[in-house]
């Protein structure tokens, strides 16, 4: 069955995807809210920036992040001045890179969900004495719940599936940055096709199960509506 190092890689992958998803809930929600509500000229440019990771080769994103977080980059200088050292080739460096890499998978479903709510429920809430912040938590969040579930699942699954960015930023350090996709690459490099098969099958089953859950949910929602 799976080796200890396989299990270690899987556990690392789950931790990375989980932490990335949590951070993106916190960062992505205000960005998506702003994009959904603003009439500012900046909506277009910010929307495009958020969507960039969809089209950029992960190596390009990884390259820039490596420069930024490296000893001479602005982020690197900042983290060094805090006494944290530099982020590349650490777990937290991977987290930062994954946050950038997966941001559209969080923001876009949330933005769609917020836009679908429209102005009216917000106006109703205001006439019922709810402040804007109160309205966000008591009306917007519950109404956007399906959007949050979709965004969370997509972000988690997309982070599990990353490879290029990990290789650029994290390298291949067992227990620190060697996630499942890198582990498979290692198995193949070492001609361990049996190990590569087993881990690949786990990833395939996981990805299919995630997407199946989501699409089943979606058609259930449609039937209820």
């Amino acid at each position, binding site marked *: 069955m799976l080796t200890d190092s396989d299990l270690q890689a899987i556990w690392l992958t789950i931790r990375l995807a989980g932490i990335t998803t949590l951070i993106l809930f916190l960062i992505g929600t205000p960005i998506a809210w702003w994009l959904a509500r603003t009439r500012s000229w900046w909506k277009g440019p910010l929307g495009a920036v958020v969507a960039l990771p969809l089209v950029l080769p992960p190596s390009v994103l990884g390259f820039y992040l490596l420069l930024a977080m490296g000893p001479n980059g602005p982020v690197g200088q900042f983290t060094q001045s805090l006494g944290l050292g530099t982020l590349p080739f650490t777990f937290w460096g991977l987290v930062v890179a994954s946050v950038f890499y997966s941001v559209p998978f969080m923001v876009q479903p949330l933005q769609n969900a917020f836009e679908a709510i429209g102005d009216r429920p917000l*106006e*109703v809430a205001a*006439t*019922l*004495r*709810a402040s804007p912040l109160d309205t966000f938590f008591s*009306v917007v969040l519950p109404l956007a719940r399906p959007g949050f579930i979709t965004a969370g699942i997509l972000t988690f699954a997309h982070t599990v599936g990353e490879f290029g960015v990990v290789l650029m930023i994290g390298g291949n350090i067992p227990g620190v940055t060697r996630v499942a996709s890198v582990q498979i690459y290692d198995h193949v490099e070492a001609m361990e096709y049996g190990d590569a098969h087993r881990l690949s099958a786990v990833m395939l089953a996981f990805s299919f199960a995630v997407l199946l859950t989501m699409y089943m949910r979606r058609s259930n929602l449609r039937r209820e509506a």
Partner: protein
Amino acid sequence: MDSIEARFKLDWPGFTLDVDLALPGRGVTALFGHSGSGKTTLLRCLAGLERASHGRLEFKGKIWQDEKTWLPTHQRPIGYVFQEASLFAHLNVLGNLNFGLKRSTTAQRVGLEQAIELLGIGHLLARKPDTLSGGERQRVGIARALAVGPEILLMDEPLAALDLKRKQEILPYLERLHDELAIPVIYVSHSPDEVARLADHLVVMDDGRVVADGSLVATLARLDLPIRLGEDVGVVLDATVGELEKEWHLARVDFAGGSLWTRDRGVPTGRRVRVRVLARDVSLAVLDPVPSSIQNVLNGTVEAIGDDDHPGLLLVRVQVGATLLVARLTRRSAAQLGIAPGLPVSVQIKSVALME
């Protein structure tokens, strides 16, 4: 002090709202006009949902908006009913009703239970909005607005999205509101029938401006309303049920100037009612009329003559006692009868709509 002073100037591409109004602090005020006349925009300005660039709004001595002040919607002591009930889909009926109640600090003039009773929705409390009919949803919407204990109720065409049957289902509840609510109500409508039933005060709007403003009875009797009402030209009389003739299923209603017979609608004697007399149902005669099927004949004096929408028609205002009635005649018959101010006439009224 006891009123609402509103002045708004708002410029949008292709639309300008420019109003300066003093509205009564009690009773139902109808904002009436065709679609696009700005009545909903005015209501939204009152609620703070729209912010006029230049505006001043004072409600019973408190400033809600001026150059320095802007009270956001959630701090205004209003209740607001939207055209579509717009219930929160994630809450059941009781959850919707409680939403504002939990957040409101204003005195409970109409408590939640009273609102539930008034709108007859006690049996719906556990239901989700998507299982309600359109009429039920709108009743919940109205109760939800009342449950916050508002100092003023703003209603944006609450019946417009409903079919005739649902309208008939809700109108009695609105009439109860009119009778039992101590707070002022601003009611936006483009339906002359709703206005005649519900309003005490009438503001007529056209193209972003106020073109008429006054008591319902006096404003409807104006011959120079610059807005086409067509078949709905007519007056409203405040009356009392004086006598019932069970044998003929008729009721006599008395008003300042005479009485009229109308179909018995089961309203007991002594009850105050509203009677709507449309100009098309009123005809005039200069001699004593010969016996005819028309039951209601009153004596009056021609008071004024005005143009109607069609060049072949005239509107004639007749004084009957202390009451004004409006009749629609053809220009030719008016000429043949020699209709002129001061002429005594017999007023024949073909039909009368009694509204409780």
